[in-house]
């Protein structure tokens, strides 16, 4: 699903990622760890095409990303469900409208859209909050809204950047259970997290990033 071939990324003199190789197979779920500044965000940004690699090749869903032009970036991003640490919800939108945003962008009509939004909100257990503003919800609930938005378009791949960063252990475990559920129905999941306590209790492979270098089970070409 995601393949990095000799990928390097430098900002000026700083090497954020050095000759990274890894391959996340379709339907796999894995964690990406490393202390802050180790290159986790860089790796996710390369997948989202928020950045382009200095050298090497990134392939997502059999598509070589270097082949995509600026105008093809939006279509690529629509294939990926993205969950942020700070949830990135729009506070002047209702919960419903936040979750509906990816569908609106894809041009769904009102009926199909609201059906899918309700299904996604139901999945994260917040169906009764659809009319509220995200600002009145707890941080755990806000994160679940962010997850609902990421899955509403039924992506094949979910990327999460520190999705439990602001949550207490119980809420974190709950959020991880959600990701596992999506993975069980065939969605590939890559979660960047430094919450080692939580990660070690879960049966998923861990890719480690250290000063831009990868190590771990996927760090070879394939596994």
């Amino acid at each position, binding site marked *: 699903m995601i393949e990095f071939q000799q990928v390097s990324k430098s900002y000026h003199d700083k090497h954020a990622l050095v000759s990274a190789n890894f391959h996340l197979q379709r339907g796999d779920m894995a964690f990406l760890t490393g202390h802050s500044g180790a290159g986790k965000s860089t790796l996710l940004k390369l997948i*989202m095409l*928020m950045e382009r690699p200095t050298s090497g090749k990134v392939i997502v869903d059999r598509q070589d990303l270097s082949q995509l032009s600026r*105008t093809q970036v*939006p*279509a*690529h*991003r*629509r*294939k990926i469900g*993205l969950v942020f640490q700070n949830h*990135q919800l*729009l506070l*002047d939108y209702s919960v419903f409208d936040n979750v509906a*945003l*990816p569908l609106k*962008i*894809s*041009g769904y*009509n009102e*009926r*199909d859209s609201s*059906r899918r939004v*309700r*299904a996604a909100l*139901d999945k994260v*257990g917040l*169906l*009764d909050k659809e009319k509220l503003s995200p600002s009145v919800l707890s941080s755990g609930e806000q994160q679940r809204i962010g997850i609902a*938005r990421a899955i509403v378009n039924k992506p094949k791949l979910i990327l999460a950047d520190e999705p439990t960063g602001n949550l207490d252990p119980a809420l974190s475990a709950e959020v991880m259970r959600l990701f596992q559920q999506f993975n069980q129905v065939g969605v590939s999941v890559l979660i960047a997290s430094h919450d080692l306590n939580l990660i070690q209790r879960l049966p998923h492979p861990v890719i480690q990033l250290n000063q831009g270098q990868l190590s771990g089970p996927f760090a070879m070409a394939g596994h």
Partner: protein
Amino acid sequence: MAATKHPPHNASRTKPESAGKRLLREHKEVAVRSWRRLWLSPLANLLTWLTLAIAITLPASLLLLLSQAQHLGQQLNQEHQMSVFLVPHATLEQGQLLSQEILARPDIANVTYISAAQALASFKTNSGLADILGSLTDNPLPATLLIAPENTAQTPQAMSQLTQQLRQLTLVDQVLVNMAWLDRLHAILAASQRVTYSLAFLLALGVLLVVGNTVRLQIESRKQEILVIKLVGGTDAYLRRPFLYAGFWAGLFAALLAWIIIQLGVSYLHEPLLQLAQSYQSPWQLQGLGWVGSLMLLATSCSLSLLGASLAVGRQLRLIEPQ
């Protein structure tokens, strides 16, 4: 979970939408949404619209005045006749024949033949010198042709050419035409036209800048929303649309306000201008914007605003990229 309360719908039940229909629906949604957004900050918007309206009103009202002044100029030109005095020995038949020959020319609209006798009779009644004139044995007045050239032949060059040709005719003694007056009118109209066009150009630039800046501020205030939309895969076209509609609405309201200002101005000026025209025995009156003028005002304002918005939005959206 709550799923049991909401039975899953059958997805295949909905017919797929055609691309055109979808685009139309999306545009309708954005139009409605951007319309509603206008009323979230009505005062700020009103100020922008007024600024635009004033920038549009100035050149539009000048153009209106200019086009009507040109009308007036043409009306005066039509009445403006050349006087061709015939040689004293020209007979009545010769005079009438010449008048028909001249009328046959393509650049002549009208020819009136005034015989020497008619000229004397008219002079007697109008001048109050009937007694003195009655004592004359000979008629001192020549026969006259009053010539009105076609509108197309009323340029200074054509007029002087026509004068030359008329002078060469054997029966013609003298040709009188107030060339200086005609030249001046044309020069004044041409100068005011250029002043108006330059002003219109500058103020059109002003409209572009005002709309551009307004849209830039709107984009700045919705930066977070734009970032999120970019991250979940919104295309540039999708992001541009609400701002283009905002530009369009601004143009529409500016045009409406400008229209009101112009019509008020016209009714304010109507009375004194009417009196001025009547003092010259002219039937001329100041007209407001007609249907065509109003539509042109609307189209110009909307397209200028739309252009200003699209120039700003393209540049500004490229500056906002998720980091």
